[in-house]
């Protein structure tokens, strides 16, 4: 069975096989590395897990000198700072996404704006932290005192007001997750078929009505996914938060008080930790990685379902 002369031998086949092999190895290494990291953290955390069990999550004592460890204040700080950041960034990010997806601006200007927003994501965390220390901290301190003076009776706003506080960290986090929200929301807005926009305009809808009644409902699942991914990013964000949140291990309910997050706790304590404290930090790291991984997986699932729905719906 010799091949007809006009079909040449497949000279690329061997090269293609090598490449496929290389890709497989790379993929396996990535999965292996992730598994290795989680395993390492879990193993190092195991003494603390055995020692404290679930109590680790519900205790608000973090006293290295007495070997007492509990991360409730950090869990609370992580959740509140991320939620607050999301609350601040969502309206702004959505506005940016709309501004960059609808024809408010001529196209070249739109591209430029998009690049600038994406540059926010490329700014190193420590730079945000530094900016926060010298700009935001005095501002929050100043206005915080005013708010506490007038509205201190409202829950979460009681004093005294500190510059290095939950609010300061949330503000910087909001800025840092803004590009995530804007980019993913924009993608889901751009994916809306042009015929829907035209349909709304042709019925005499204003731009506002078109956006609020047709575009946003259509893009809602994508916006939800954007929020979840942004939340995940805010939870894991470390450097800027560690520089601004005040690193207090006490559980306080005011946004003007110093607080702490899991990630900031790790960044601040690993260098001087020894003995059981290392295991406790590893336990905290294990919780953090579960939280961020979980959030990201949920976000990705929502996003994928959205894309499938958009693809099938049209």
């Amino acid at each position, binding site marked *: 069975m010799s091949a007809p002369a006009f079909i040449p031998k497949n000279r690329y086949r061997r090269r293609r096989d090598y490449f496929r092999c290389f890709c497989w190895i790379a993929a396996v290494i990535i999965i292996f590395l992730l598994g290795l990291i989680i395993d390492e953290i879990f193993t190092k955390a195991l003494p603390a897990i055995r020692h404290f069990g679930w109590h680790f999550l519900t205790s608000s004592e973090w006293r290295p000198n007495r070997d007492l460890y509990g991360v409730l204040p950090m869990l609370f700080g992580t959740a509140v700072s991320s939620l607050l950041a999301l609350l601040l960034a969502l309206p702004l990010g959505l506005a940016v996404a709309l501004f960059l997806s609808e024809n408010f601006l*001529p*196209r070249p200007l739109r591209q430029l704006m998009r690049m600038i927003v994406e540059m926010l994501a490329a700014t190193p965390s420590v730079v945000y932290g530094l900016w926060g220390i010298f700009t935001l901290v005095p501002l929050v301190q100043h206005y915080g005192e005013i708010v506490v003076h007038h509205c201190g009776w409202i829950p979460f706003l009681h004093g005294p007001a500190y510059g290095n506080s939950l609010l300061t960290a949330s503000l910087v986090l909001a800025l840092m997750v803004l590009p995530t929200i804007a980019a993913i929301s924009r993608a889901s807005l751009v994916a809306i078929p042009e015929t829907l*926009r035209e349909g709304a305009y042709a*019925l005499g809808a204003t731009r506002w*009505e078109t956006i609020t009644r047709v575009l946003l*409902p259509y893009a809602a699942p994508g916006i939800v996914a954007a929020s979840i991914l942004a939340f995940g990013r805010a939870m894991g964000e470390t450097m800027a938060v560690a520089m601004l949140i005040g690193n207090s291990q006490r559980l306080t309910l005011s946004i003007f008080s110093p607080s702490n997050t899991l990630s900031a706790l790790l960044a601040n304590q690993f260098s001087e930790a020894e003995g059981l404290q290392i295991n406790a930090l590893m336990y905290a790291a294990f919780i953090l990685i579960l939280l961020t991984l979980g959030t990201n997986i949920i976000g990705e699932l929502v996003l994928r379902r959205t894309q499938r729905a958009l693809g099938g719906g049209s």
Partner: protein
Amino acid sequence: MNPTSINSTELLPSSSKVTPSGVTNETFIKVINFDFFYGKKQTLFNINFAIPSKHVTSFIGPSGSGKSTLLRNFNRMNELLPGVRHEGDITIEGRSIFDASIEIIALRRRIGMVFQKSNPFPRSIYENVVFPLRIMGCHKRAHLNETVERSLRSVALWDEVKDRLGENALGLSGGQMQRLCIARAIAGQPDILLMDEPCSALDPIATAKIEELIVELKKEFTIIIVTHSMQQASRVSDLTAFFNFGKLIEFDHTNRIFTAPIEKQTEDYITGRFG
């Protein structure tokens, strides 16, 4: 090249002393010396004609002949695109639609539009139909319900969907979706209905239904339909305008266009020699 069949004094087909359906043939929409440009490219050249009310007028012509472009000028949809401009004028009942005192939103509420591809909003059937009323600020339940029933009956969709008005409109079949879009377009009781190749994505049965509908709807609306199907134009329309290369070549009663066209180009097109 001139639209010779048009009587210049009344801008109506020369033979239209009595219009086919016997109703009043007063001029409703008038296009006067109309030029249109996308950026530097001119796509419509000196269009002049008048469309009577309560008739079906079809626009035929090869792709790129400018028929859709002209259609989208009647409700100023072209203005959503960057870099477009026009010269000349279009009037409806004697008033220029480009007049500074005309509010574009109000204009579009008087003119319903049905698109090539059905575009129901991803909401319930009910909410799709009442969309024009909602944006006009009407929230009276009784009036909304009545409009839904009336509009869906007009497009012969009521019996098919009356038990599932709350379901998502995207679950309907292609033909049903397009009829829903027509119902939505007429829910706000416009005067004019623009249809941009409304059947091009539909099967023959769904197409036949829409065509029946068009004949029925002309009792209430002035209908302008862009179509690639000459059979469709001859079946549904009273008047036909033939466009080529951005020019109006001929405008006349549909049966005259298809039986005794004056222009050579028209004849070539309808006999399938090009296009």
